[in-house]
């Protein structure tokens, strides 16, 4: 039987230095195991459950602090190969994000039947960019991380840099989805309506164009009134959260896969594209599933991101076959 904390200890062996694991993680795990063994002798099930919950939470917290400290300590000493890989990864990410953003815009821009010049079309393309970034950033970062970490010479520092970048972009993505995208979408609608013949008045903001605070207010009002369409607002609300976390979740999964076994660049890119396609398909299916009441919108919207994160943790902490 696996003793409590062993899986987190194996995870620590992959993300922390040996010294950090011995000094910070092992004492925490040893204390948890001793406390759990004492509770087992006393026979109280609830006490055991409480000890496991508190113990795992505390070890996870120690792990995050320790991994961060390790990263900070090693961040100043980049080898030439590592720096070059990180630079290449950044360029690949930028290229894919730009290309994906433009490609996602083309169908909508092409379908617009309004008499606008090139300049006006470029302005419309700018308005569409923020909403497309939510899809192109996770893909670009994930593929770039795969490219930087392919083969046998993958380094933990490059992986950590990718994870830190992804975490920072997740925060920026939330700002984008909460405020920038709704304003840009509304500006797009206003511009399009102004070019109609005869010109139409500026449209009122729909649910998709509500800024974060307005969406929260509208959601609270709908819940209070027991509105039948509250699921739509909940879907929009939780989607902003889950899509913000998507860059971090995708990169974490790629890092876990890359460190699990050596990959060719094409192989890892293929797996990343497959995972992203599954994530995107799941994202597209959440709206009809929420409408049918298959599961709460929060569960459906978080499913793809949570699955990626769970898979990353499981792959990283999985015991390697002897």
């Amino acid at each position: 039987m696996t003793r409590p904390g062993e899986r987190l200890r194996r995870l620590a062996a992959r993300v922390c230095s040996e010294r950090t694991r011995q000094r910070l993680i092992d004492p925490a795990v040893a204390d948890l195991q001793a406390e759990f063994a004492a509770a087992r002798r006393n026979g109280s099930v609830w006490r055991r459950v409480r000890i496991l919950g508190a113990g795992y939470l505390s070890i996870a917290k120690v792990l995050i602090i320790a991994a961060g400290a390790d990263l900070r300590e090693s961040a100043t000493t980049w080898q030439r190969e590592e720096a070059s890989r990180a630079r290449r990864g950044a360029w690949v990410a930028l290229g894919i994000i730009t290309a994906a953003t433009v490609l996602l815009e083309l169908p909508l821009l092409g379908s617009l039947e309004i008499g606008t010049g090139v300049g006006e079309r470029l302005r419309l393309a700018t308005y569409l960019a923020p909403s497309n970034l939510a899809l192109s950033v996770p893909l670009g970062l994930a593929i770039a991380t795969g490219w930087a970490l392919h083969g046998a010479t993958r380094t933990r520092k490059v992986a950590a840099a990718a994870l830190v970048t992804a975490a920072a972009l997740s925060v920026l993505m939330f700002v984008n989805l909460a405020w920038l995208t709704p304003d840009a979408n509304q500006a797009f609608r206003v511009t399009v309506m102004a070019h109609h013949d005869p010109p139409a008045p500026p449209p009122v903001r729909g649910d998709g164009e509500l800024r974060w605070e307005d969406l929260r207010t509208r959601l609270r009002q709908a819940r209070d009134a027991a509105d039948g369409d509250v699921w739509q607002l909940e879907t929009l609300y939780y989607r902003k959260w889950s899509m913000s976390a998507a860059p971090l979740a995708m990169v974490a999964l790629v890092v876990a896969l890359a460190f699990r076994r050596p990959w060719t660049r094409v192989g890892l890119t293929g797996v990343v594209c497959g995972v992203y396609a599954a994530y995107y398909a799941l994202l597209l299916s959440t709206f009809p599933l929420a409408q049918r009441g298959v599961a709460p919108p929060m569960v459906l919207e978080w499913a793809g991101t949570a699955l990626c994160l769970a898979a990353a943790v499981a792959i990283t902490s999985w015991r390697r076959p002897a």
Partner: protein
Amino acid sequence: MSPRHAHPPRLSPKESLIVELLLRDAELYGLQLVAASCGRLKRGTVYVTLGRMEDKGFIASREEAPPADEGGLPRRVYRVTALGRQVYEAWNMAAAHMALRYAR
């Protein structure tokens, strides 16, 4: 003077509490320190604080033998070093001096 000791050693409130508890009980596990602190130390951060104090030389630790009957990892037990005791006493003395001087 080496750069490491360019400033006098400092004790944060948490570090001071840990030294105080270890001076009272000689040797304690991390979890025992959390229990003895009456909620002032959290089990999610106590090991990081202990590691930092060990780096500074305020405390030392040793691994106990692994539990014979149930297996599992050997527990780490902590104690105060002479430096830790000196720094703690110096800080307490300074605090008492300041309290006397600025007391109204």
